[in-house]
């Protein structure tokens, strides 16, 4: 097949794909009788026009960075972890159990324990599909989908029957003790005169997400383990030749992946809700697939794509406040971005490659 320069593969194709997705979304907006220009303006001002908007955009971006990293680590081992949703749900359970277990004196003490618990629960939820893939060849895509549903049912059960405080109506846990409340950007950046990020849920987890990106980058491109993961992902026979155990790499990559997805819980459960609610993940596990795809499985790309999706979600919420465009339009845009950057990649790539070959040949 015709070859493309790397920059075109990494930047141009996703860019064109996203633009096509946006163009079609624009048509949808026109189709429902709204003004796409107004929509874009609303989204931009709502998501980026104030520290409040930024506070939400970055909050969502934090979620998506975690799930995007989760998907991309698995992807490097050529494993398609579609179970980020369930792993993040379970991570939430782990975080909640830790937060409710003792009356934490200070968030600095609670946070590391909660992080470990979230990661462990997420990893545990990824472990079974990983084991079945590695040892019994069960297709990990199907098993992780199944585990998403099982996780939802499990969480439902635990919340309703065990974590719900007596007499409470809705299925959510008790509020976490105040010693677990993470500092928000409002706490960190407001001065005496001006309140910044007022009420926005973005919190210290954002920085943890960035650190996670750095660590994942180091892991994948700078450590032996990452080298082995990438080797296995590129070619299983070659990996076996080099003495890399497929079973071991499959397990490890999925455990890291599940752990990252589970860590998302410190953002949404510990940082935002400060209690465990049903469906706390809100599709972030699936959006992580799009984030990883668009970000070309690179942490920097994941940050950028996570930010894009954070913007879409927050901007989309604003649409609903100020225009009569339903929030679900954002789901449509997300779908189109996934479709064009993921499944219809070749539709952009093939003509582009032809274009480049023709230019190269001329």
């Amino acid at each position, binding site marked *: 097949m015709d070859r493309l320069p790397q920059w075109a593969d990494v930047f141009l194709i996703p860019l064109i794909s996203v633009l096509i997705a946006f163009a079609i979304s624009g048509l949808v907006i026109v189709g429902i009788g709204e003004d796409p220009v107004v929509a874009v303006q609303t989204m931009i001002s709502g998501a980026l026009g104030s520290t409040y908007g930024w506070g939400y955009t970055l909050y969502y971006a934090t979620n998506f960075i975690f799930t995007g990293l989760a998907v991309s680590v698995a992807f490097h081992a050529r494993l398609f972890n579609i179970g980020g949703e369930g792993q993040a749900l379970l991570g939430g359970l782990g975080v909640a159990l830790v937060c409710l277990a003792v009356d934490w004196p200070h968030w600095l003490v609670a946070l590391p324990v909660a992080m470990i618990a979230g990661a462990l629960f997420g990893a545990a939820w990824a472990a079974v599909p990983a084991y079945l893939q590695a040892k019994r060849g069960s297709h990990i895509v199907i098993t992780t989908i199944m585990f998403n549903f099982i996780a939802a049912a499990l969480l439902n059960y635990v919340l309703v029957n065990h974590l719900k405080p007596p007499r409470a109506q809705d*299925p959510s846990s008790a509020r976490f003790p105040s010693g677990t409340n993470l500092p928000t950007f409002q706490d960190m950046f407001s001065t005496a005169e001006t309140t910044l990020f007022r009420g926005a849920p973005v919190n210290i987890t954002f920085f943890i997400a960035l650190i996670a990106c750095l660590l994942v980058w180091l892991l994948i491109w700078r450590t032996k383990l990452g080298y082995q993961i990438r080797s296995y992902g590129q070619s299983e026979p070659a990996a076996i030749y080099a003495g890399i155990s497929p079973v071991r790499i499959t397990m490890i990559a999925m455990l890291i992946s599940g752990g990252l997805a589970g860590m998302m819980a410190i953002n949404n459960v510990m940082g935002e809700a400060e209690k465990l609610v049903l469906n*706390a993940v809100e599709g972030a596990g699936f959006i992580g697939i799009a984030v990883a795809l668009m970000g070309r499985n690179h942490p920097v790309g994941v940050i950028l794509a996570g930010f894009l999706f954070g913007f879409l979600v927050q901007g989309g919420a604003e649409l609903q406040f100020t225009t009569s465009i339903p929030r679900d339009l954002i789901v449509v845009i997300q779908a189109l971005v996934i479709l064009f950057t993921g499944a219809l990649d070749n539709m952009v790539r093939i003509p582009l490659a032809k274009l480049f070959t023709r230019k190269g040949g001329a």
Partner: protein
Amino acid sequence: EPAIIYDLGGKFDKSFNEAAYTGAQRWANETGGKYLEIELSSEAQREQALRRFAERGANPIITTGFAMADPVNEVSADYPDTTFVNIDGWIPEIPSNVAMIAFEEHTGSYLVGMMAAMKSESGTVGFIGGMDVPLIRHFGCGYAQGVKAVNPDATIIANMTGTTPTAWNDPVKGGELAKAQIAQGADVVYAAAGGTGVGVLQAAADEGVYSIGVDKNQNHLHPGSVLTSMLKRVDVAVYDSLKAGDALTGGSMQVLGLAEDGVGYAMDENNASLVSDEMKAAVEAAKAKIISGEIEVTAYYTNDSCPVLDF
């Protein structure tokens, strides 16, 4: 500019949220006023919606559903100049800028329970709740007491749709539950299940038995099949709150019962032929006795159980 936040299920659930919407529309039509609104689509949006409106200076901010009580409690502290209203919820200590509104659903349900028992030929009636929470048991308990008051030998089949908020919006499941109850002999089915009730009422109409709507007047949905509706005047509560506007004060819990016309049963041309004069007379008599205290309808909340029904 006031704002309304509808709970999961949406403002067109033909029931609870739609009642709130009706009240708001009435206010808008009468006063020409405008209001902001949003329909929640997930749990995690609750706080953001509250803050978003508070940031924009909306006042008062009216929320429907008990699940909003906790977020309101949280957020209200950050916006002392905004008044928040919550319908159906419960907070241990009500902040001074939060107005809580509750209804005596059990007394309203008692009346429709009486009507169900009088209408039933099989002696078996059904109750289908939405999400399995104390509030809905409260409905069911009042209903059961009403049924038993008319026919102490009556059988009451009670089911809940689910344990999560999706139970408010699952007409398929509602329909299946109704069919199951009808197959067990129920010939009047009371749905206290939000949007799920649409499926219940549909199934009852399909199977040719009677149903009882909830919250809003649902008699028109299937004329001739919906026996009546247990009115819970969320619309009135919303209308009153909007009307009070900036003057609205918080810090207290207001309970609306039969006396205040906060709850009741619906009569209109769609069910006129279904409800005989004797039935009406009996129900009206009971209503008066409840208001006067002569009849005491036990609230489920009293000790988290129902004297005449096991859930």
